[in-house]
């Protein structure tokens, strides 16, 4: 299994336990119409350092966590989902507390790619965690353009395409609920990303998650991220996402479905993970790494403590 592949990749800075996500050699890699080979002609590998990853949109710019010791020992940091141009985000209230969860509709605020590359990335790539840049956009072309520019950005270890925005339409983003559309986006991003590995974060929809995972890996994704927010509603009825421990059993089921259907595809799991026990349940279900999101909003040291507990 792809937990600790033997081949390729740069050496990690932080001790022996490292997680690489790649298309496993155990399964003949379907070339597919959009498949591609990595730099060395081998599998495309993304190096996550170790199995604890900060989830997109829950780690701020990274600096806030670093100030609180929250990046210590973690494998990789995923940025909030960036777009080509700056976005101010959605109206307030953006987040509501619910039983063991947060319902959120931030509208994906961000500085836009150029500003990010100029002001946030240079600091971020100096930090110990590997940097994965999450991206989203209003069209396939916008995704492709962002990927093209990121392919030239030094220090980035991978691109995560966010195909799991539960309120995409409300915020003017591309609606990729159909796996077919998701695959199109991934294909375009993979094409522009050159040697940068691409992770596809697919909707945590039990019935279709395996199909989604299949089409995006056929389109060239090096692995899938499973267990983002569930489609929910804010108290005032606006569409939103539900995250946190409430969704954990749903996320775990999604991971199980993908692993069963596609044993060769590396899966990064997430959704409500807070304790080492939670993380182990996902790793035991076959995930190569776990993402920690909402737990950080409640306790900014949550991922660091998890990394220490799993080390």
């Amino acid at each position, binding site marked *: 299994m792809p937990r600790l592949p033997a081949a390729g990749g740069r050496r990690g800075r932080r001790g022996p336990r490292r997680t690489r996500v790649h298309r496993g050699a155990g399964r003949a890699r379907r070339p597919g119409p959009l498949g591609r080979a990595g730099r060395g002609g081998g599998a495309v590998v993304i190096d996550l350092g170790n199995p604890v990853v900060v989830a997109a949109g829950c780690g701020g710019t990274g600096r806030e966590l670093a100030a609180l010791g929250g990046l210590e020992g973690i494998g990789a940091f995923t940025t909030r989902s960036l777009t080509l141009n700056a976005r101010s985000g959605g109206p*307030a209230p953006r987040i509501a507390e619910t039983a063991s969860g947060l319902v959120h509709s931030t509208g994906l605020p961000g500085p836009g790619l150029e500003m990010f590359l100029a002001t946030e990335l240079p600091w971020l790539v100096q930090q110990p965690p590997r940097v994965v840049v999450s991206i989203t956009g209003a069209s396939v072309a916008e995704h492709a353009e962002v990927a093209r520019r990121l392919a030239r950005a030094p220090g980035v270890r991978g691109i995560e395409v966010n195909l799991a925005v539960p309120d995409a339409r409300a915020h003017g983003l591309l609606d990729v609920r159909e796996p077919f559309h998701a695959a199109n986006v991934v294909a375009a991003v993979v094409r522009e990303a050159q040697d940068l590995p691409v992770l596809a974060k697919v909707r945590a929809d039990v019935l279709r998650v395996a199909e989604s995972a299949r089409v995006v890996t056929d389109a060239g994704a090096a692995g899938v991220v499973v267990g983002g927010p569930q489609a929910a509603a804010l108290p005032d009825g606006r569409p939103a996402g539900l995250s946190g421990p409430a969704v954990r059993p749903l996320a775990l089921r999604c991971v199980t479905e993908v692993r069963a259907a596609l044993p060769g595809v590396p899966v990064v799991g997430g959704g409500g993970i807070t304790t080492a026990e939670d993380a182990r349940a996902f790793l035991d279900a076959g995930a190569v790494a776990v993402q920690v999101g909402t737990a950080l909003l409640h306790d900014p040291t949550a991922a660091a403590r998890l990394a220490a507990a799993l080390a």
Partner: protein
Amino acid sequence: MKSPLHTTGEVLASKRVGAFQHLTVVAPGVAERFRPGTFVAVSVDGTRLARRALWVHGVKPVGGYGPALQLVVEPVGPGTRWLAERPVGTRLELTGPLGRAFALPKEPVATLLVGEGYAAAPLYPLAERLRERGCAVSLLVAAPDERRLLSALEARRVARAVTVVTADGSVGRRGSVADVVAGVLAQSAAEVVYAAGPVPTLHAVAAAAEQAGAWSQTAVEQPLACGTGLCHGCPLPVVGEDGVARVVRACTEGPVVRGDRVRWDELAGAGEPS
């Protein structure tokens, strides 16, 4: 500026005064880093995920424990009620001090401090720092009623001139900050106005300051989820130094911002694409 800490504090004392519960919380390292206008984010009730923000009302040495935080809680919902009911000895997960503090004037100028309800809390330690710098301090304290008027007695100690207004007239003048702020400001001859309280109050103060040609520093409360800058759940619409309208995080780029930089009219629907 030193980094904030995430730590476990302990309730050393809890006292009811009027409608407020005053908590003394020891949280090693946090008190030492405190500057007026910053806040702490507290975890409440075991499983509630959003954190609760509280202004730091002061730092007081407690024998055997070092400096302890003074917090003022108005029980309005599940989280603040839970906090108000905590027995002495309760351990609290807290993070702080968070956010941008009130900026202090470089010169010893006259200042006016305006606070409403529990939100007057950060103005008392601010008054002390201003006096240390030789600034004249006038204070305007407001509340819906006497029970929610914070530390009126202490006000006399920290300020040269004190004005009190309550909505029901139960103490001081009957009225609101908006009614009296222009007059008090003129009287104080303040060059800098500091304010903390509900948004309409802050807006009125910022407008009066602008009118009078004074600087204003407003401490804006927006509903928070994390308080630490991670979630982007606390949009605050401002005009940047570059004159460009943007939306910043109230918890990180705030809570204290220049009153003339806030797009007050959009604060209700903060974050609406601009």
